[in-house]
Structures are given as C-alpha cells and as structure tokens.
C-alpha cells in the first residue's frame, strides 16, 4: 500500500471515529449543509495549526529558495499528470469536447513540452478541463452530502471524501515506482499548491469574520461550480430587500 493511500484511509478512519459524539451547535446559526460542524471545527483548528507550523513555512521557503522558472516547471509537470486523470473523468461524464481538449493537452505537453515541463498547450490556447472523480459522481446525480473537513486534506464533502481513494489512485505519485519517489512527488505537489495559495490564505483570515464558515461556504460554492462547469443553479434569493 503506498504511503499516500495509507494516509487517505487513515484520514477516513479518523473522520468516522470522530463522528461519534460531536455536538453540532443548535439554534438559528446552524447551517443545514454542515450537520457535523462541531467535529469539522476541531479538525479545521488542527489543520490550521499544522499549516501554521509546517506547511506554510515550507511553502514560503519553496517560493524564496527556488527560482520561478523551476517552480513553473514543477507546476507544469504535475499539471500534465493531473490532466491525464481529467481526461478519464471527462470521458466518464461523456463530455467529449473536454476529453478531447485534455487529451490534446497531454499529447502536446508530453512531446513538445518535454514530458510536461513546458505548458505549450496553454500558450496554444487549449483550455484545461478540470475533472476529478468527485465531479464525475456529482455529474451522475450524487449530491455532495454533508460538509466534511478532513485531517490534512482540508475542506471536502462526503461524496468527495468517498471519491478521494479513487482520485488518489490516479494521483501523479502513481506514475513513479518506489515509495520514496512517490512521497517526494506528493510533497512537491502539496508544497506547490500551498505556495500558489499563500496570498489567498492570508486573504481568507483578513476578509472574513469567521474563517471556518467563510472557507466552508467558498468551498461548497466552488465544488458546485465545478460539477456544473461554471453554470450552477442559483441558490441565493436576490429579491430587493428594500422593496416591501
């Protein structure tokens, strides 16, 4: 079992164990999308502490130490491997154009782009389809289920958590043999991701009154937007509050 898969299963097991007896705040402020809010807040606090202590400093060092063209190369390389999985999921959702575009991207970047180090496809204007297994399940009618904050992985939904082992099977680490290499690729991917989110992470704390619920709402909206490919149903009531 690869290290990544073990972590994923441990996260799910931990999540299920914590489900027992965690009170949800009652009263008008309770959010129907988040029945496990008590547990989620605890996990969020844990993740935040870990982020402040380890992940963020590593990402900052990554940005300071490595020249930007190296970081771009890393992002492109990982992105190419992620594109492969997007093609599979686009196919599973019968999204022919997205699948074709993804396939073109992988073909162009893997050959002309030196195994993915150069992102020639984006410069050529081929759009990047972002499809994962959670979206595939969503497309075929599975609702998101309750909001779940996973240890390490962060915000998710029950559906996406169930899809996580499948997505992890197809993660970029899979393209490497040897557990050391797999771990190295995963760490690199997480660091690159976190480095890209450095300003966003600070903005979250500054822009919100309660970072936990702000992140929750942003995450749930973003996921629904992804499942519906940018055109989700309108959920908010926009009637003019000043009119009687």
């Amino acid at each position, binding site marked *: 079992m690869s290290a990544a898969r073990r972590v994923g299963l441990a996260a799910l097991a931990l999540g299920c164990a914590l489900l027992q007896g965690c009170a949800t705040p009652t*009263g*008008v*402020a309770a*959010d129907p999308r988040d029945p496990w809010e008590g547990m989620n807040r605890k996990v969020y606090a844990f993740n935040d502490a870990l982020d402040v202590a380890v992940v963020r400093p590593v990402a900052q060092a990554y940005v300071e130490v490595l020249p930007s063209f190296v970081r771009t190369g890393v*992002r492109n390389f990982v992105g190419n491997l992620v594109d492969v999985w997007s093609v599979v999921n686009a196919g599973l959702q019968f999204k022919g154009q997205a699948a074709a575009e993804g396939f073109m991207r992988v073909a162009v970047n893997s050959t002309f782009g030196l195994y993915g180090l150069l992102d020639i496809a*984006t410069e050529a204007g081929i*759009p*990047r389809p972002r499809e994962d297994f959670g979206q595939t399940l969503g497309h075929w009618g599975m609702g998101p289920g309750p909001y779940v904050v996973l240890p390490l992985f962060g915000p998710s939904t029950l559906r996406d958590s169930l899809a996580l082992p499948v997505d992890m099977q197809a993660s970029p680490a899979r393209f490497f043999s040897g557990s050391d290499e797999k771990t190295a690729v995963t760490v690199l991917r997480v660091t690159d991701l976190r480095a890209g989110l450095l*300003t966003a992470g600070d*903005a979250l704390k*500054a*822009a*919100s*009154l*309660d970072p936990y*619920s*702000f992140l*929750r*709402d*942003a995450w749930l*909206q*973003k996921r*629904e*937007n*992804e499942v519906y490919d*940018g*055109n*989700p149903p309108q*959920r*908010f009531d*926009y009637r*003019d*509050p*000043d009119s009687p």
Partner: protein
Amino acid sequence: MLNSWIQPTRRGLALMLASLALLGLPSALASEESADAFVRRVTTETLDLVKNDKSLRNGDVTKIMQLVDNKLMPHVNFRRMTALATGPAWRSATPEQQKRLQEEFKTLLIRTYSGALSQVSDQTVFVKPLRAGQDDKNTVVNTEVRGKGDPIQLDYRLEKTPGQGAGWLIYDLNVLGIWLISSYNDQFKKEISAGGIDGLINSLAERNKANASGASARKG
C-alpha cells in the same frame, strides 16, 4: 385633401427629429448598451488604469480608495449589495445603522481585495457571450481574466437601470465560482443572531481595525 394630411405629419416628424437631437442621440443610444458590452468597457478601463499606475499596484490604500470611489462605485449598487448580504435584518435596521454597515463593509472589501491589484501585470479580460433569457434585474455576465497560468473565472451580476448613468449597476461578484454576497450573508447571519445589527457593525469595525494595524505593521 391629401396635402392637408401630409403637412402636419411632416411637421410632426420634424419636431420629433429636433427633440431627439436636443436629447443627444448618442447618449440615448449609450443607455441601450448591452450588459456584456458594459462590463467589457468598465473592466478594460479599470484594468488599463491599474496597469499604468505603479502606486496602485504597490498597494497605496488612499489611491486605491480613490480609484474605487471614482471609477467603480458609480457602477455598483452598494446599498443593494450590503442589504442582500445582511439579509432580512436589514429592513429593521435604522438608516444610521444601514449607513454604518455600508461603510464598514466597503472598507473590509477594499482592504482585503485590493491585494489582488498588486498582482495585475499583463492580464486581459475576456467577456463571454451573454447567456440567453436572463432577467433584467438579475443578469449574469461571465468573464475570464487571462494572463500567465490558468484563466480566472470572474462573473458579475447586474441590474438594468434605464436612464440612470450607464444603464447597468453591479450588485454581486463571483471569483473562481464563489459569489461574494452569498459568502458574506453566511458570515453576517451568525453575527446578527449573536448580537443584532450593532453586533455585526462592531465585528466589522474590529476586523477593519485589525487589518489596518496588520497592514501598517507589515509596512513598518
């Protein structure tokens, strides 16, 4: 007999043309600008302004406030934005409370999102074709900010205001699939149920103070 019928009509036509000229035909046509043309014009103007002004990109808050007040606020129905974010409690708020809410909310948004302006370099805005069948009071314009890396989804929700200003007002914003008002409605609801409108105003004021001192600490 035919002559007497044609003469008044011709005069009527002449009067009509004269009055149109007085109204200023170009401005009458301008108010018929479509939602996507409006968004394209405003965003391109703003983006060009930011690209040409280094102090804006460096985070000069006074200049950013000026830019927002002069260039953007005239195109935003900020009262409606604040009212929607506040929810049903807005109706029972006093005019003084409503005014303070708008001020604190505006400060919060400008301070936190002005950081994005420092990232502007060579981005362009691509406005997608308008989706058919939209309500005049709730029109969504989809755009993409294109530059280095993945394009960023940026959508606007507009209401038509015939005869007023440019003919459209923005009242909600969507970045990367996340609508602003929905997110803040969630935030505000909690504060209101805990401490009412005044509780909400105080929390916003505290957050703004914390951000301001944080920013000056970083600069110093």
